[in-house]
């Protein structure tokens, strides 16, 4: 098992369970090539190894980081919740978790960011499309005819 590779981190377990493998394999096969090129190559595991060393992560934390990245790339985890997951699952302070999340998005996801966005929109439409802010009430002085006012702010 290569704990630094998002593709191989749970490979033995997946291959041992036909159902789990089929789910994972189907998701992987249907990914855009750009995302596959972030998820599976050795350059990703090399980067995560370097990152883990820099952040002084232990093996469990490193493996968990690989799993979080795999889940985001497969569309199983909302990218906006990545810092929270890093913090929770890797037991890191929120600030550091946010910093790790930013590093991964900017340095690892860069070449596939558009495809990742599309995938995330597809998988988590309710989380991406935030509710529209309510229009502020127009304060109208008493005695003024409403028909004579053009509300440019809420136009």
């Amino acid at each position, binding site marked *: 098992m290569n704990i630094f590779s998002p593709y191989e981190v749970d490979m033995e377990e997946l*291959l041992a369970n036909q159902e789990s*493998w*089929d789910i994972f394999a189907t998701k*992987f*096969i249907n990914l855009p090539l750009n995302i596959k090129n972030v998820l599976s*190559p*050795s350059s990703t595991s090399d*980067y995560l190894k*370097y990152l883990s060393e820099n952040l002084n992560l232990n093996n469990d934390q490193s493996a968990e980081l690989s799993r979080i990245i795999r889940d985001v790339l497969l569309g199983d985890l909302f990218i906006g919740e990545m810092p929270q997951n890093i913090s929770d699952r890797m037991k890191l302070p929120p600030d550091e978790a946010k910093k790790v999340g930013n590093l991964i998005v900017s340095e690892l996801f860069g070449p596939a960011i558009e495809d990742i966005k599309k995938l995330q929109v597809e998988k988590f439409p309710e989380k991406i499309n935030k509710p529209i802010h309510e229009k502020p009430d127009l304060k109208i002085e008493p005695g003024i005819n409403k028909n004579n006012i053009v509300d440019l702010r809420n136009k």
Partner: protein
Amino acid sequence: MVTKLKKQRLQWLAILFAVVLVLLPTHAAKADCGIWSTSPITDCILEGTSYFIFLLFTLVGNGIAGLVGILYSVINIPVYPSGGIAVIDESWKIMRDFANMFFIVALIMMAFATIFDVLPGAAKYNARALFGRFLLTALLINFSLVIGVLVIQGTQVLSNTFLIAMGDISNQLGQKLNPSLLIPKLTTTTGYAQAVEQGVFKSLISLVFAVILGATFLFSLLTAVIFAFIRIPILWALLVVSPIAWILNIFPSGQGTFSKWWKTFIGWNMFLPIFLFFLYFGLYFLGQQDAVMAAIAEQVKNQNIGEGVPFTFQILFMYIMAGIFLIGGTMVAMKASMFTGTGVVGVAKWSRGVASRRLGLTAMGGAATQRLEQIKQEGLPGGFGQKLYGGQAGLERQTSRWAERFGVRGAGDKQLAKDISFNKEKFKNITDPDELKARMNSGSKQEQLAIREIMRDKGLLDNSELEETYRRYGGNETLAGKQFARSINYDKLSDTERDRWYRQTNDIETKQKIAGIMADKGEFNTIPDIQNALSLYALPVDRANFLKKAGRRITDNRLLKPLMTTGSAQEQLAVREILADRGALNGAELFDTYSLYRTGSKEAVDFGAKIDFGNLSKIDREHWYNNASDIEVKRKVAEVMAEKGDSGILTPTELATAAGAPGSPGALFANDAERIKFIEKAEKKGFMATIYAKSALGIVKDASGTALTTPGAVLRNRVKIMKTSDLAEIGFSGGWDDAAFLNAVQNKLNALQVSQPPIPGGPPTTPGGPPKMPKPGGGEKFKTDLQNAVTDARSLARISALIVP
């Protein structure tokens, strides 16, 4: 314009009339021709005739006298008097100064020609060739006027010799050149009348000759006067331009002009002396007429009537001789003085041409000839004219009418066609639609039909006019009517008009033409209509062609389907092809259609080649594979079956059989390369089967050309050369689930990892910078690419299990 011309002619006539009035003689009235005369009619005829002759002689005589006076004055005009002519002298100076400028040009030209002597054609312009002439011209150009005047004076000396010898030529000619001597010396018209009555002139011919001779003298003198006069301004002009002629002498290309100038100049100078010589000779001859007269009188005085040559005829002969000297003298003077091709003769010819054209004689002559030819061909114009003389066309029409009466079928139609063709040629230049429209209902029947045909050709007839023309031709009853109907462009008519024509004509050819267009345009909406139109055609090929067109417009395949089993094979095929193109035939119907074509024919192969066997069912494909008679079609089916993994071509044995052993009879593939290509089409569905089939056939060779006969060797060879994407596409069954195949892929991965080893990472190259990242080896990259390309989850599991060393 016409009015202006008429006015000009009237003016000329008025002038001519005035001249004639001046020249007319005065005539005293006599009472002999009157009611008191014993024979008044005879007297009046005699009086009238004598007056006419008297009138003619007087006119000619006065004319000659006048012209002689003018000639005498003109030939005595000095061309260049001793004091010179100011306008000539000054004009010549301007020309000389202008010509002098060209010496600079000549010098530059000589310089360049001498420098570039090697250029072709430059040699004749160099200094060696031109300089001598250049110097001579530079000198003589200043004396060009003097030289010209010397020539003029030289010829004037010659002219003076004759002028002095002749003396007063007007007196001599006036007295001696008198054709009236041919008539008795009577001074009144009554005398002439008496002479006529008394039969002094037994022959009318003598009178006519006398008149002609007088007129000849007159015109001879007129020519001489004109040319003697015009030579003066011409010589002046030649003198003025003489410096230019001289300067042109320097240049090789201008020497021709220089010699032409001299020829013209000498020619115009020599005209007068030569003419005067002949005039002198003529006068000399006339001067001796008394002696000749006396000799003639001596001879005829004792002669009885009817004996020897008559006196009158001898005098007449003498005058003819004198006339020849005078007229011939003018002509010889023109030719001998080198006027031929230089001016005078040309001027004479030109003036004659201009006069003829001016009077419209040339055009009139041409037009008259054309009109005569037209009348010969067409006869006289108008109905009455045609009855009088119908020309060649009339004769032919009459012949055809008689031929009809005698029962010659189509003779009338043939003649009508000929007449119309002739009239079309006649009217072909009429292009104005309004004029054509105006003419289409006027004139003879042939003319109207010709105009209508022209309009039809130009697309100017609407449908009602076309129908009217058709009726005038006789409609269905005549060949001409049928031919007209055939010639209509039905494509331009509306669908209802076309339908009308289709129903009203009974000419099969026309009906077929209209049906063809209607079929093209989809105007046969129902199967009964199509079948009805189909009956117009007898030949299967024509029926099939019609069906091809008409059937395409029937969009409901259910309506068409019944037609694919009726009629000849060609007709069925026509319909079946339409349905096949629309994908409306199932496998069995497609095979039936294919079977209708002649076995092995190009049509059969083309049809088979068009079929998309991938869309047919496995059963239909197998049916085609087992029953198609053409190798091309069978091969195409086999390839599709291999790609699809059809049961008939799936196992190693089936694949090897379909590919055919090298040299086996009826093999679908010509060589091993084609066989390998065919077998590899089955790789996605049964990779290992293709390996066994290829090894069984022994058709794969390694890079050194050695045949690979074991499945293991063939497998390794194939996996080694296959692209990653092709390997990823190989199916799980008979591919990724096969241990031997997986082993071969693992071996390839190992080999790549060895041949392209990974590059390890390292510390940052700059303090605080990013570390040097490691690079994967060839095998690792191969595995990643396989993972990314594969589309089957089970295959992905096998690939993921591959070990990177």
